[in-house]
Every structure is written in C-alpha cells, then in structure tokens.
C-alpha cells in the first residue's frame, strides 16, 4: 500500500506578523534614529515578505550600549544573584508557555521544519534559561573563586541558523553572571529575537538589561567595535570571526567566538549500522546542514563503505522535503538566496573535481530557496567540498582503513568544532576522542545539545565555550 501522508501544516494563526518598527532599547521598542534604515525579512520557503525591521545605525547602537551600561551599574550587577535568577526562571517559563508561537515564528523566518523548531530549538532555549537561572546564585561554587564578578556590558552577535537558541546561548549565561547585553540577531532572522524582547517585558525584566538591535553586518560592526562594551561574543563564520578578533585585539576586549566547522563523522566497520545511518543523516541534514558542527565529512571504514552507503541512500530516500510548517517535513528551506548560491557553487565544484553527486528523487517547490539532500562519494582530501564549510545539506564521503588514518584525516582541517565516532568498541571511542582535535566529540550519536554541556571549538572554529559550568567563564571576571 502506498502510504502518502496528507499535508499536516501547523497553523500560522498563533503568530501575529507585523512590522517591528523599532529596536528594543532600555526596555521599550523605540524607533531608529538618524542613520537607521529598514529592511525586509522574508520567508525562505515562499519568499513572502514577513515584516519590515529597523536597521540600527551608530546612534542607535550608542543608545543601546548606554542603556545596557546604566542597567548594569544601577540594577543588574548589584541585584542579589537569587533575584536575578528569578527573572531568568520567569523567562524560561514564558518561553515554555509561548513555545508554539515561537516555533511557528522561527520556522516562518528561518525556513527550518516546524518539527525541529518545536522539538529542538524552543525547548532547548527554555532549558538554557532554566539551567542558567540556577547558576545565578551559585556562581561562587562554579570554580572561579569565592565571589566572581561580572564583566559589564556584553555585545553579542548571533547567526541565522538557530536564531532563538543562539540568543539563549548568549543571553542566559551573560545575565546569570550579572552582565547586561546588547544583542544583534542576523538580518535574515530577526523576528524571534524581537518576540523575545516582548517576553523580557512580560517578565518585567528591568529596562536595559537586554537590548536588541536589528540590522546587518554594519550594525554588527558598530556593536563589536563600540568602546562602551566590555565583552564580545560572536557566533558565525570564521571569516567574520577573524575580523572581530582583530577589532577586539586593538581594544583588549574579552572575546569568545563560535565559528565554522567541517566535522568528520567517523564510522567504523563494527558500528551499529542502523543508528550510524541515522547519525549520519542527523549530522548533515538536520537543519538543512545549517549547523556549524554538522557532520559534513563522512569518514567510513573501507570494509564497511559499501553497506553503509547503500543504507544511507535508502534512508535518504525517505527524507521528506517541503513546506517547513508541515509537521512531517524533515528537510526545510535554505535560509537565503545568498546561502543557496554558495551551496550551489560548492556543489558544482564537487562535480568539477570529479566527485560523484547523488540525491534521492525529490521535488523542489517552485518558490523559495531549496536544495535537495545531497551526498558526494569519491571525495578526496584535496577537493573543495572536503575542505570548505558548505553550510548546507551536502555530505562529502571519504574512506579510511585504520583508526590512525581516520584521526589523521579528521584532523586535517583548519577547523575543530566537532567530530563523531561510531563503533561498538568503547576503548576505541576513547582512543579516538583523545586524538580528535575538536571541541565536542559525539560517540554513537551526533548533534546532541544540552545546556549543561560545554560547546565550542578548537583551532579556527573559535575559542571559548558556551554552556555548562565552563560556559560561565566567558561572562565572569576570572582574572
């Protein structure tokens, strides 16, 4: 029997789309001043314009930083940790209460499947606030001395792949540690950050503790270069990360960077095959491959390559691509035309370099930005698709013969964010983990995240960790 799932779209009615004429500064939505502009944010699945948003100029960033400074000095840094924590608990609760609204808005603005925004992004964002709420009055137990101090005002710039979740990763630890923030969401996905601003109001968070300035790269540059901030936290591309590192080098500002990756997912011939295939799929097609820690290089032991690839293709044929608001969609839209062009260029380089491209039969919608789940076999280390971060649903497959060769190939990249190891042999997992130059090693699983688990990269994947006890260090004066 042919079992076609009927469309099961999540209702959009929970979200009220409107133009967000303003920036969230000092606890209120205020219009942009001279030097500001407006930009449109579109649904990548349909190219429908969702809203007009303010692009913050220099004066706006000044105001936001001043508001954060005032809140830091007058309110937030002097408030007992216990009371700070209660605000964070409130925010966590409101995120849970408004989870459906946030999930729908995230899916509209980002293009990711509603299943992911509903089951991953939003619950994890709430969990992040919940976890850090508890740290607010326990910082003296975190291992950074008896009374660690906050840094001051943090300037935070986040990417478009997990808009709300990245906001939570940035804001929750900053606030728990007693800092105030000015955060700039990505220009293609500003909406959940603006809804979060509303949630701050709903939680009666003191004005100025959280400020949201929307805009593109220029706004981000103004923020990270602003003399009034004490700390910069950035998640995004390695290229921009290096530029920010140069800026902060001159100002001696504290900086954490969570950048790109080209993770190796290493599958041995004694791996639990069905779960390994799930892990490969989850590693590269989760969130359309818009994941800095995506398992974009599959390193499979030669003796198992044929079986694993056959199983992978069979599994890829069941992936459901389409309307991100459909609850059964597995693969959503590419976030922007620009990103789609980049993915296409790199995929074409794979063809040109002689790798073999395969995608399951799948119909791409007429409107919007789409790229099918794709696997390249016959890839060698020299190919661009084995070296450059594609940030899309494109997997490059390489083979290896011995554990040492797997380690060598896995580490042969300027990146070092994450890695995966699949084998039923525990001692080999630990041997591999000890040699992989990556900030996170997943064994017999992939793309797992938890607020208690530190995340961050080696080498050009950035520095500093987010999450867990270790993540607090980025927002505390530990010197």
């Amino acid at each position, binding site marked *: 029997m042919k079992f076609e799932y009927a469309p099961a779209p999540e209702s959009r009615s929970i979200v009220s789309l409107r133009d967000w004429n303003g920036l969230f500064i000092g606890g209120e939505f205020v219009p942009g001043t001279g030097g500001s502009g407006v930009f449109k944010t579109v649904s990548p699945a349909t190219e429908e314009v969702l809203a007009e948003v303010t692009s913050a100029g220099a004066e706006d960033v000044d105001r936001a930083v001043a508001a954060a400074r005032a809140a830091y000095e007058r309110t937030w840094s002097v408030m007992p940790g216990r009371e700070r924590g209660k605000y964070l608990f409130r925010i966590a609760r409101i995120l849970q209460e408004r989870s459906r609204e946030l999930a729908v808005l995230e899916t509209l603005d980002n293009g990711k499947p509603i299943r992911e925004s509903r089951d991953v992004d939003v619950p994890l964002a709430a969990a992040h606030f919940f976890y850090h709420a508890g*740290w607010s009055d326990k910082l003296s137990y975190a291992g950074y001395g008896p009374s660690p101090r906050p840094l001051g005002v943090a300037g935070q710039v986040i990417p478009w792949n997990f808009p709300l979740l990245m906001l939570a990763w940035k804001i929750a630890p900053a606030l728990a540690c007693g800092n105030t923030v000015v955060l700039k969401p990505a220009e293609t996905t500003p909406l959940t950050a603006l809804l979060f601003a509303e949630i701050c109001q709903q939680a009666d968070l003191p004005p100025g503790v959280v400020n949201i300035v929307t805009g593109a790269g220029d706004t981000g540059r103004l923020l990270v270069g602003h003399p009034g901030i004490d700390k910069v936290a950035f998640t995004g591309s390695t290229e921009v990360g290096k530029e920010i590192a140069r800026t902060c080098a001159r100002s001696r500002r504290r900086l954490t960077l969570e950048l790109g990756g080209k993770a190796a997912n290493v599958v041995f011939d004694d791996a639990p095959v069905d779960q390994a295939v799930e892990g490969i799929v989850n590693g590269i097609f989760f969130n359309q491959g818009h994941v800095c820690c995506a398992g974009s290089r599959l390193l499979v032991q030669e003796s198992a390559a044929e079986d694993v690839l056959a199983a992978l293709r069979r599994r890829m044929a069941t992936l459901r691509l389409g309307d991100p608001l459909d609850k059964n969609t597995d693969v959503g839209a590419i976030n922007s035309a620009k990103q789609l062009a980049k993915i296409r260029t790199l995929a074409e380089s794979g063809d040109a370099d002689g790798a073999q491209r395969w995608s399951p039969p799948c119909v791409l919608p007429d409107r919007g930005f789409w790229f099918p789940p794709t696997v390249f076999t016959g890839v060698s280390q020299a190919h661009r698709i084995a070296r450059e971060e594609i940030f899309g649903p494109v997997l490059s497959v390489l083979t290896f013969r011995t554990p040492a060769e797997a380690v060598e190939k896995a580490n042969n990249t300027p990146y070092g964010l994450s890695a995966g190891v699949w084998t039923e042999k525990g001692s080999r997992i630990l041997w591999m983990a000890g040699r992989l130059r990556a900030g996170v090693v997943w064994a017999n699983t992939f793309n797992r995240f938890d607020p*208690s688990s530190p995340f961050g990269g080696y080498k050009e994947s950035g520095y500093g960790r987010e999450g867990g006890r270790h993540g607090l260090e980025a927002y505390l004066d530990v010197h």
Partner: protein
Amino acid sequence: MSTDQGAGAAGRIAVRKTYKLYIGGAFPRSESGRSYAVTDHRGGFLANAALASRKDARDAVVAARKAFAGWSAATAYNRGQVLYRVAELLEGRRAQFAAEVRAASGAAVRAAEAEVDAAVDRWVWYAGWADKLTQVRGSANPVAGPYFGFSLPEPTGVVAVLAPVSSPLLGLVSVIAPAIVSGNTVVVLAAERCPLPAITLSEVLATSDVPGGVVNVLTGRMAEIAPWLASHMDVNAIDLSAAPEPLGCELAESAAANLKRVLRLGDGDWSAEPGLERMFGYLETKTVWHPVGI
C-alpha cells in the same frame, strides 16, 4: 487554623479539616487510629494531627524505596523542573503558610511572611542544583595508565529526616530539598509541636509533579518513631540534627547497624545560605574506569 475555629459573623460554622499522613502519594490516617492535639504558641487548640505508629513509619520507608528507582533515574533537568514547579506552588500558598507559621511561633505578620519567602527561595536554590551537582561534585580522573576514569555523585537511597523544631517551614524545606534534589527519597518526621506547615507542604507536593513516595510525611512523636527509622535496615541515611540529646546519640548508635550515613548538623540558623553540606551528605561517589585503545 485559629480563624476557622468558631462560627463566623454570619453564624456560619467553619468546615474543619482532618489532618492525615502523607505516604506514597496518598493521605492515609495512621494505621493506629491515633491522633494528637496540635496547639498554637499560646496553647490554643489548632487541630488534631495523626499520631503515626511504627507501622506507619515502616509503610513510609517501603513507599520511599519504591519511589527511589524512578526518581533517581529521572534526568537531573527533569528533577530540577519538577522541584521548581513545587516552588511555584509554594508561592501560591504563601498566605496559608504564613498563617501556620504565625500560629506555631507567634511571629509577627512580617516575620512570618519573611520566613515563607525565604522558604520558597530556599526551595528554588535547591531546585537549581539538580543539574549542577554532578558538575561541581564530579570529576574526570587523570589516572596513570591507558584508562579513562571519572567519578560521579549518586544518591544514596532512602533518607529519614527529623524535621527541625525551631523553624517550622524554612527549616523543614531546608532539610527535605537537599535530600531529594539529587534523587534520594525521603521519610520526614514533622516537628512534633508544629506539624501543620509539613502537612500543607505534603498537600503542595501531592498536587505537584513530584512522584508519590519521593517525600513521605509522618506526624507524631519523635521519641516513638525516630528509633524505628534509625534502626531500619532499608534506610540509607538519616538526618538527626533535630534530635535532642541523649536521644541523638542513641539514634546514631542504632543507625550504625547498617552504617547509615548520619547527619548531625544542629538545629541552627536556618536563614543563612546553607552551603553544600546537606546535599553532599546524601551522595555516594561512583568511580568508573574504562580502557583506552584501538
């Protein structure tokens, strides 16, 4: 409560409540059928509370043991969420708790409310520890050899607690929360003279997401019940801080029969930040070795 005692202004007769035990998520009467009069700080009658027997204590330990597997296996995040929800419910009963604290201690309205607020904050403080204890108390062990080693805290099991007398609500919360946050289950003997906050807390727990049996509340005589808990071979730890001497020494001696972990920290200043001692007192450390190799 004292305000419920007589007829109201309009001649309405108040509906009085029968106070019962809290065992395994249910509210049974004492199997002994006994009760005792609870009075306010001036000696005025407040209510009859169940006078628990040794069999009630036995039943409570059985319930706590039964609940241990599930509660200790819940994720730390889940325990944290469940305990935070309790704090929300406690806050909702603020007025009732304040009235009970006042009746018990004769404290001024402000002072009683301050104790309730501190109790809620204390519960929140402990709730936040659920998913942090392992990170503060655990370790990776750099052993000299091709092995990966780590040590993790684990709950010890069933904990018997004698609730403090000096602080009927804040003290009570301060001895229960540190035991259950890490996954232990508890049998608490409420303070004999002022058990009403403990009974109300059990009603809060019963309507919360805390599984039945994780906290069991007995009301009755310490001298009668505590020896049964202290000597019980299926109790893993006991908090004797509230026991007066020489009873405390006698109980500690019986607790040695199965080498219970014994806490004797005194019935002190409950308003100070508690530190880690009580949580750590109910933790075992488990060390794991695993080879590293191809």
